[in-house]
């Protein structure tokens, strides 16, 4: 191999740099809570906390397709409670503080959904 020393050193440096986030993460501190503020008046979301935390975005996609394409605008949750399918009029009823709820997690995870270019936030004023 030509320049074996330089090549091997290069590969090592490259690998270390690329995997750096993992090493830093392993060595790092505990996870920091995002400081998310839950709605005060409601205790339970439409499904379990675990499901909502993991799959709320997929659920929203499914809701959208069911409501817009199948005209199925009522969702019966696992516990039998019925919900009107609407991001704006159902979800945001309870989660009315999007800065303290949606944004906290989304920003921490570098997710920037653009729901609000169309959907209207409660009490929105520009």
């Amino acid at each position: 191999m030509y320049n074996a020393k330089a090549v091997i050193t290069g590969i090592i440096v490259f690998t270390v740099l690329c995997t750096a986030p993992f090493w830093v993460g392993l060595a790092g501190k505990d996870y920091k809570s995002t400081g998310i503020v839950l709605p005060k008046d409601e205790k339970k979301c439409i499904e379990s906390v675990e499901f909502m935390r993991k799959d709320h975005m997929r659920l929203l996609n499914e809701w959208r397709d069911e409501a817009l394409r199948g005209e199925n605008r009522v969702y019966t949750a696992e516990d039998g409670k019925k919900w009107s399918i609407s991001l704006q009029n159902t979800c945001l009823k309870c989660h009315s503080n999007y800065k303290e709820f949606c944004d906290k997690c989304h920003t921490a995870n570098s997710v920037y959904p653009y729901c609000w270019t169309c959907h209207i936030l409660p009490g929105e004023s520009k």
Partner: protein
Amino acid sequence: MNKSRRSFLKVAGFSVFALSSGIVAQAAVPGTANAKLAPGSYAKGDAALRARRWAMVIDTRKFAGPRDYEPLMEACRQEHNVPSIPDARNIKWFWLDSYEHTFPDDMNAHLDTKTREAAYPLLCNHCSNPPCVRVCPTQATYKMEDGIVAMDYHRCIGCRFCMAGCPYGARSFNFKDPRGFLPNPVPNPSFPTRMIGVVEKCTFCAERLAMGKMPACVEASEGRILFGDLEDADSKVRRALAANFSIRRKPSLGTQPGVYYLI
């Protein structure tokens, strides 16, 4: 070229072929719905109005002039946060035009003055055979079971093929951010606006029908626009069509519009 490079190219070529044929194979099964994710179930609301084929009959004889349509247009704009943009890039859901422009094929020079000079309301015809649905490359626009031609603004890529496809000019493109042309707060905070770069149009108020309400323009027309099930021989629209002479826009194109005009 040495041997290893050649074999690499071979492998690469086959991979590209396999990948692209994979895409094509996937394309061969359209609309494959993903397995349901939510543990709950979906249904229509109890109050929802249902039909096998929604249709509209506009009794233009009962409108004296453009001013009579104003409350209807306003109701539509308020209901759906439709902006008013004062140029050729306007967003139109429910609007007025002359007889000549509305029914270009039926124009004759000696048409009675009243018919010729009247204003006629235009909106999406919710065709039975909609060209816009046929041409849309992403199924962002689609026909629902009840005949309503609807749109999913989340999926629209803004290619405007549907605008070229629609023979009725019923589709509008958001050349600019519509929020800039709406008051703040928007007229109806329970309905979304649209965003820049997508196409939009009349929805026959599908969201109102789901709540058991008639479309906004129908409600504001005070009985001068009828709305009902075209497949039901006993519906208001069928009775009106049976008893009166009616026309549709550009029937020769085979799109089967769902909006009828009593002249």
